[in-house]
């Protein structure tokens, strides 16, 4: 088959499991061995998934390339494409285009303390960051992971919390917006947790991903902790259709999320004309 940049590679669903009430972890196996071999990606990159006949949408890669050829995506049911993907059974056919975008500069993070802040499904692109650090634990400094969600049932990757928490020099702080009897942990908003834990900006970077309102208030806290703008990394989410810099849908001012991003430092974002 002739390949064109709009035609997806075919893949089948190898496994699909519940992460929360409305989030599924979908594992895909690309059909073509050559495509599988060539599909190398870095933490922070994304791909377009097609539910053929329903549509196509971009999703962050939640797996790490070096662990194998299967691609994992944590998908929250929020629209028609994500709904259709979440309904799929193992063996179902999916279209994949990618990988697209830039990535977290994991090399530059070496030797640094890393604060990872994820709100809800925002943990998805952070999972490969955490995975990469834990697999090369000695190369990075202290890790603080703050993960918050609306409720206990909305915390994603719960099956991995023990592994994260028990890793050397790694602290995991979970928090929820709404408490309940079955939850003995924190009931705080993420910015409050940041204010309380006071991570030091010295030799550190922060990686944030989550809803814009959460990011906004976390930035206020980081500012008062004296984090510089070039120490703060985030991924921007944007409506996009092509991933190729052609459809002109994903610009934030003069930058295109699909090609210039999705990973930006706050230093870069503060120079954008348009504020997301």
């Amino acid at each position, binding site marked *: 088959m002739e390949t*064109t940049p709009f035609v997806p590679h075919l893949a089948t669903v190898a496994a699909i499991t519940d992460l929360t009430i409305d989030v599924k972890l979908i594992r895909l196996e690309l059909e073509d061995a050559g495509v599988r071999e060539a599909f190398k990606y870095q933490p922070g990159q994304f791909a377009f998934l097609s539910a053929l006949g329903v549509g196509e949408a971009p999703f962050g890669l939640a797996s790490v390339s070096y662990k194998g050829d299967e691609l994992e995506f944590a998908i929250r049911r929020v629209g028609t494409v994500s709904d259709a993907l979440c309904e799929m059974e193992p063996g179902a056919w999916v279209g994949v285009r990618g990988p697209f975008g830039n990535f977290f500069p994991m090399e530059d993070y070496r030797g640094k303390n890393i604060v990872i802040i994820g709100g809800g499904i925002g943990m998805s692109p952070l999972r490969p960051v955490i995975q990469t650090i834990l697999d090369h634990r000695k190369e990075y400094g202290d890790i603080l992971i703050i993960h918050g969600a609306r409720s206990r049932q909305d915390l994603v990757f719960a099956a991995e919390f023990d592994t994260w928490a028990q890793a050397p020099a790694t602290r995991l702080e979970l928090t929820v917006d709404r408490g309940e009897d079955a939850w003995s942990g924190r009931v705080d908003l993420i910015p409050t947790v940041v204010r309380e834990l006071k991570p030091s900006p010295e030799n550190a970077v922060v990686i944030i991903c989550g809803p814009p309102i959460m990011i906004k208030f976390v930035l206020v806290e980081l500012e008062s902790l004296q984090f510089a703008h070039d120490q703060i990394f985030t991924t921007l989410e944007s409506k996009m259709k092509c991933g190729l810099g052609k459809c*002109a849908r994903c610009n934030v001012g003069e930058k295109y999320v699909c090609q210039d991003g999705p990973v930006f430092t706050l230093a870069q974002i503060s120079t954008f004309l348009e504020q997301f």
Partner: protein
Amino acid sequence: MTEFLSKEGLFTWLRQIAGERKLIAPVRMWGITLFRPVGSPEDIALDIDNTDLSAKDWFFPPSEALFTVEQQGGGRPLITPATEDREAVLFGLRPCDALAISHFDLPFLAEPADPLYRERREKTVLVGVACARARPECFCTSAGTAPNDPSHMDILLTEAGDGYALQAVTEKGRQALGDTPLESRDIQLPPTPQPDPVPLAGINDIARQVFDAPYWDRLADRCIHCNLCAYVCPDCYCFDIRDYSAKGKIERVRCWESCQSAGFTRLAGGHDPRSTKGARLRQRFYHKFLYFPEQFGPTACTGCGRCVRACPVNIDIREVAAEMQKAAEQVALETG
């Protein structure tokens, strides 16, 4: 001495073209003028100024399938990409639309190139006709071209008496002429029309200063987001991609979209980073005056004036440019 093609010679040539390949030319249809495939040169609207819809439709149709999918039950989908195998001559192109095609090339031919666009570009000969008159809303000479500019065309014809002065701009154009007999004449070309100037020089620097001007919300008050400006614009290229499925056959369709649509940037979760009309209207002018130039070089406006003509609430890009200038002067005053 200039090469000269009589009107009769032109028709003979176009008739031959229409027999061999697609002939795309300006026609009157549905009460408007636009570029369509024509069966014979007699169907061409030769007497009009610029068309209501631009020539972009041929390279970038309002909607087209990128590929089709056939899938039986849950079986392996069979994907067939769309291709373009028709050789074509696009006749009657004006310099403003030719400039717009050169702008389209920048995103669409950037690697990985858009396959359908690239095929159409390679297989289409661009035959321009110089403008004998400027419409009241024309301002091409302020936007990087001119009524008689042969740039980005393969052939340029200029009306002269009972025929056209012919300029074969490229080898592709020369070849398309085949053995069409051309005279060599000493021709006095008619004077070139002079559209009114619009202050577009330095508009990108001005844009940097007036992003937060209250002007945008005020202007947007009257916008009814009908999207006409984007549809008639030869430079607007935003698109949407969606799936249509009927009787087991699926099409993935690319269609025109406009940054004025309410859902243009709305995410599946509901968050919309550009949720106000003012921000959306500003995006239209900023993409043209600042973002496109930052990304590719040229300003994404060719001065064709179609948006001025089409807008039902008289939003006028020439006025917007002037207002931006005023707002920048205001900013300069306030900041000393």
